[in-house]
């Protein structure tokens, strides 16, 4: 199945082969699904046998995802007033988030008829108090995301109960609200939102500062509403970097005002993002504590650039990588980055640099000539291109991130600021950090979401610091990222493919190492619970227990058992 779970290695030459194999595969899937339906004799449904599955929660587990760094709890239940009020100073972001979380917490309706309205019921918790110590709303890598959450139980005292979140920044407070919302549960018997196992004392902060999700909007356009929903779901799992792989060989959907023909490379005029759209996405993400790291992948993966400016191609028949011999190419890159600097404030900017097949440089006469004139091999020119691109980004006050081939190929020649983005396999970050480079882990064997055969267990157990024991080296590992490449992913199946496996990785990246290394039995139950939580919040997370990703449930059953 390796063929079918393609990574971002999609040259035009391979498409036909890919299509054929995939088509057969999809056909087989449909045939087997249909056969299953027939075999079950199902038309309106088969007759179940006597014992219907009953699912009860394991009371000893903390159903918070990801698991907080430190927490203690009791065994009492407190009720949360449906008129819960927020007490906070200023902080529009917090107030907006509170309104969102209130809707999530109070999603079920208890008031039915006046005789059932428990107007006089004495709820335990009436107020959520949030204290944020800093006014600074700047969101960058390494921002303080810590928080404390206290929910006391009262128990006979006359003090009005409140839940309290304390944080150094609003971003810590947002995480605190997310955790609080996960502790709240609607009790169908009492018809009240309750918080069990109080009192809670939680002190939490992430293990890694960079906890990313890559979204590919070139292989398939993703509508803005879908991107926003992905951002919301990231916040539920405390992921904090959206790596927006905007452009690739198949399409160029983003507006670049100084080069208005570039988005002629979009699939259609409707499958585009204006600069306002992009800014809106950045702002939306910021209010959820999420940075957006944009990527302009060069010099490979850039065929779509030539739809508007054919000069960027080595030739009309040989279209990748970008033509290294022309200053125009670098003018274009400069203009793109200048325009994007106004949209993307995150300090990291991704320049790609992966899977560069330099054949077209060698075979196109004027490029070949240029190589000779400059005494470069194609490999030298690859290095030249990447380094020049890095300088342009650095001039825009960005820190460049590059895919690992750049490190593998020309090691210390990379700008020392470079963040090396590992993807090919294990063992790369240890080498990169040994040479003083920062590193992000996305080893495709375990963290590529488009690889449907990677189970959640592998996402969960993959350890970014594997093979890195020196403390100063460990600090250079910024974190990791799961990658949602878009070859077979559009608006119809993106959330199903991302979740729940991205959540498994999010706990690996957030929670302490010893907490995530104790064995998987209890993790499964907690992940099932989190997946059902996502479903309740409108996120189409797939069944956890399926062997392959984004498959339908195998039959009728409880969300918590599938």
């Amino acid at each position, binding site marked *: 199945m390796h063929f079918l779970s393609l990574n971002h290695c999609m040259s035009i030459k391979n498409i036909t082969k890919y299509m054929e194999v995939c088509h057969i595969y999809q056909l087989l899937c449909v045939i087997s699904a249909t056969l299953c339906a027939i075999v079950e004799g199902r038309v309106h449904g088969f007759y179940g046998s006597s014992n219907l599955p009953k699912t009860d929660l394991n009371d000893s587990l903390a159903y918070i995802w990801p698991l907080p760094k430190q927490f203690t709890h009791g065994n009492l239940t407190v009720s949360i007033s449906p008129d819960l009020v927020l007490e906070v100073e200023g902080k529009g972001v917090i107030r907006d988030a509170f309104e969102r979380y209130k809707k999530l917490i109070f999603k079920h309706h208890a008031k039915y008829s006046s005789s059932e309205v428990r107007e006089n019921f004495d709820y335990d918790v009436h107020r959520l108090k949030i204290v944020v110590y800093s006014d600074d709303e700047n969101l960058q890598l390494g921002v303080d995301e810590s928080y404390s959450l206290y929910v006391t139980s009262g128990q006979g005292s006359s003090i009005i109960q409140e839940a309290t979140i304390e944080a150094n920044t609003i971003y810590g407070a947002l995480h605190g609200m997310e955790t609080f919302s996960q502790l709240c549960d609607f009790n169908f018997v009492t018809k009240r939102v309750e918080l069990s196992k109080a009192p809670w004392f939680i002190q939490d902060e992430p293990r890694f500062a960079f906890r990313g999700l890559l979204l590919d909007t070139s292989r398939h356009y993703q509508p803005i509403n879908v991107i926003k929903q992905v951002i919301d779901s990231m916040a539920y799992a405390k992921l904090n970097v959206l790596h927006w792989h905007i452009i690739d060989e198949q399409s160029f959907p983003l507006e670049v005002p100084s080069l208005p023909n570039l988005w002629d490379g979009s*699939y259609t005029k409707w499958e585009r993002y204006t600069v306002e759209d992009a800014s809106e996405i950045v702002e939306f993400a910021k209010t959820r504590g999420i940075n957006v790291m944009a990527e302009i992948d060069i010099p490979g993966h850039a065929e779509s650039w030539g739809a508007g400016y054919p000069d960027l191609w080595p030739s009309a028949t040989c279209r990748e990588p970008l033509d290294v011999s022309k200053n125009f190419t670098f003018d274009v890159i400069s203009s793109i980055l200048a325009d994007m600097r106004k949209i993307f404030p995150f300090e990291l900017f991704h320049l790609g640099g992966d899977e560069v097949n330099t054949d077209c440089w060698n075979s196109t006469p004027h490029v070949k000539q240029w190589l000779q004139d400059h005494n470069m091999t194609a490999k030298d020119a690859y290095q030249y291109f990447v380094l020049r691109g890095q300088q342009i980004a650095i001039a825009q006050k960005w820190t460049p991130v590059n895919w690992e081939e750049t490190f593998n190929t020309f090691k210390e020649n990379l700008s020392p600021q470079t963040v090396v983005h590992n993807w090919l396999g294990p063992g790369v970050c240890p080498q990169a950090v040994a040479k003083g480079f920062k590193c992000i882990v996305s080893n495709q064997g375990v963290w590529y979401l488009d690889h449907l055969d990677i189970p959640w267990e592998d996402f969960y157990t993959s350890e970014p610091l594997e093979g890195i024991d020196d403390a100063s080296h460990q600090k250079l590992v910024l974190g990791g990222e799961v990658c949602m490449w878009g070859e077979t992913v559009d608006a119809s199946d993106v959330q199903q493919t991302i979740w729940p496996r991205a959540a498994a990785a999010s706990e690996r990246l957030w929670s302490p190492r010893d907490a995530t290394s104790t064995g998987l039995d209890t993790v499964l139950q907690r992940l099932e619970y989190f997946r059902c939580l996502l479903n309740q919040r409108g996120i189409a997370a797939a069944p956890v227990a399926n062997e392959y990703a984004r498959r339908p449930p195998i039959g009728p059953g409880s969300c918590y058992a599938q």
Partner: protein
Amino acid sequence: MTFSQLCHFNITTRIVEIHNAPWTIADQPRFSYRGLLIDTSRHYQPLRMIKGVIDGMAFSKLNVLHWHIVDTQSFPLEIPSYPKLWEGAYSPSERYTMSDAKQIVEYAQRRGVHVLAEIDVPGHALSWGIGYPSLWPSSDCQQPLDVSNEFTFKVIDSILSDFSKVFNFKFVHLGGDEVDNSCWLTTPHVRQWLNRHGLNESDAYKYFVLRAQKIAISHGYDVINWEETFNSFGKDLSPRTVVHNWLGGDVAPKVVAAGLRCIVSNQDMWYLDHLDTTWQKFYMNEPFTNITDPKQQALVIGGEVCMWGEHVDASDFEQTIWPRAAAAAERMWTPLNKLAKNPRTVTGRLAHFRCLLNQRGVAAAPLAGPGRVAPLYPASCYSQ
């Protein structure tokens, strides 16, 4: 709703535009009943998902949400008169309070969508006995509902009474499909009851259905039943019954010839869980097939596509429904003479609508191929 589909954002001028103006549109649906069935018993569907589906229905001008709430596998709905019934839910949280149901009804109403509640009796009701085991013929033989027990009908009466406070559509669906009554014959006390009343098992089936119908009517409802009731004892059904065809394409003509109203859902063309049924088939399924007399045509009140839930939970709900349900929606709305004779001519328009759904946050699947396939390769939304 139509207006919103005429508006396009011009990406160059940054203005929302309407092309080909002036427009004069006089529109009304061909059928008054244009339904979508959802099944929240095989898998619980969270409220957010149900609301999302209602939104999609409004976009495609479908107007009846047939809520198949309860079935063999689980009983998720609160019934205030019999509070143990929802112990048949999969878990304590995979449930709907009556307030939730009311909220759904209101949400739908504001979008011009009716909610048709179904309580399928006497078969497909195993889950009722989790809370009240005396509803089962016996603990080893748990379907259909015990026809010999007066309690059974008390419960049905209370359910319908509770329904009537929340589900204000004039119809209620009483199911009645796929009744395997062997448990009635093999369970001693039920067998004795049958003997005492001189009923064989199909008489008892008829007795059950008719009695349930009367209860529903007493609560002010008009009744819909699946077609087996008509096939088995059509002339004894209440003449106001609406027969819901599902088994095949040859039933509707018989129903309307008998003077009863009919809803068309023949499974070979309008079952969404049949993934091998393409959108073209959904589009081409004509409710008036073999019905030529206009008086009889008038008895076909409409049709319904069915999203059974065995393999459908929150993760693949929208993908399996759309865009194929939209193809059927046009069949049910648009006048017969304006419908395409060859579905190829509407491919572009349906693709466009599918991409519109995507833009509005509805996870409609690619058109090409069977139901809910993932896109096979990178491409524009409009070409897949």
